[in-house]
């Protein structure tokens, strides 16, 4: 048992639909609708920032395929992919997860917001606040470090004293 319920799920392979080196898909133990999937990094990470870029990439690739699977396997007409980053965004567990949620007619989810029309000045203001930070910090991605390659030790050549290769070496010029 660890402190994190989801680390336990991963370790015990409970509700596990898929796993690879970096990520797993679980059938959510706290679903919002039947068929609610969770894509989680195997490594324990409480916030998105602490998940390495290449693991995030793997999670989104998997979420994409998982949504395809939900369309086909469950015959649904809509799928939402949602990452709740921070308590204010509804994150309830201290293990980062990406929800892949099949949508049904008459389900009780809204997953919607009211768009507010904005004026160009407002947008300009936000743009100027964000430009520098984004230029500085977005675009360089952490790739997975290549695994050390095990080099096989060269086999010693056993040669008998009569081997012509050795005989030649012993010959005094």
């Amino acid at each position, binding site marked *: 048992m660890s402190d994190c319920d989801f680390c336990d799920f991963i370790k015990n392979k409970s509700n596990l*639909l898929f796993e690879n080196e970096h990520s797993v898909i679980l059938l959510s133990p706290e679903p919002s609708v039947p068929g609610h999937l969770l894509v989680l990094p195997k490594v324990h990470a409480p916030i998105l920032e602490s998940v390495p870029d290449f693991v*995030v990439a793997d999670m*989104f690739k998997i979420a*994409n395929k998982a949504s395809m699977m939900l369309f086909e396997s469950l015959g649904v007409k809509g799928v*939402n*992919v949602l990452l709740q980053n921070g308590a204010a965004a509804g994150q309830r567990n201290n293990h980062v997860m990406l929800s892949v949620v099949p949508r*049904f007619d008459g389900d009780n989810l809204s997953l919607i917001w009211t768009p507010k029309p904005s004026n160009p000045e407002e947008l300009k203001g936000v743009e100027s606040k964000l430009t520098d930070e984004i230029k500085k910090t977005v*675009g360089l991605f952490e790739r997975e470090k290549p695994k050390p390659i095990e080099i096989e030790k060269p086999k010693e050549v056993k040669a008998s004293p009569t081997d012509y290769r050795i005989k030649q070496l012993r010959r005094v010029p």
Partner: protein
Amino acid sequence: MADEQEQCVFCNIIAGKIPASKLYEDDKVIAVLDINPGASGHLLLIPKKHTSIMPQLDEDISSHMGMVAKQLSRALIRALNIEGTSIFVANGALAGQRAPHVLMHIIPRAKGDNIDLDLPAIKLDEKTFEAVFAKLVPGVKKHFNFDIKLPEKTEVKAPVKKSEDKPKESEAKPESKKSENKPDSKKPAAKKSLDEISEFLLK
């Protein structure tokens, strides 16, 4: 450009024909400020290749979008001093998709804002849970080429917390639909549609 692309607002934004506050661009994606934001700083991350729905995206683009979204989210948190972000994609009209071009929303969040991106937990009976799991097994094989060991009873943790008082044997025995239709005293409305969903899934 094909017709669909010519008419696509987002393809036109990418091509620079429609002005937008572009904040990030690389060979695969651009990010712009949503002109009708849910919150100030709401970003749209858009794949350059016209793709109408996320499952049609190439793998390298969906994974790239994830990495960019992570970094954009971090930049929003730092630059706008916000409490969190929601990263959200809608696939299909039923899921709230309005434009025929894949969009990933990155929305700044604050406690008590009016953005409803909550995922409330429902009660799901063990039978439905296991039926859904079984339904997904062939899909996992097809899309991930992964063999799941079919869950034994002990492996699947159904989310239902059983009530303290055990049902009498006479009640527990018949595994008919009746047990599913038992009205949930807490959320009668939610339970009703959940039954419909379960029925749809189990048929």
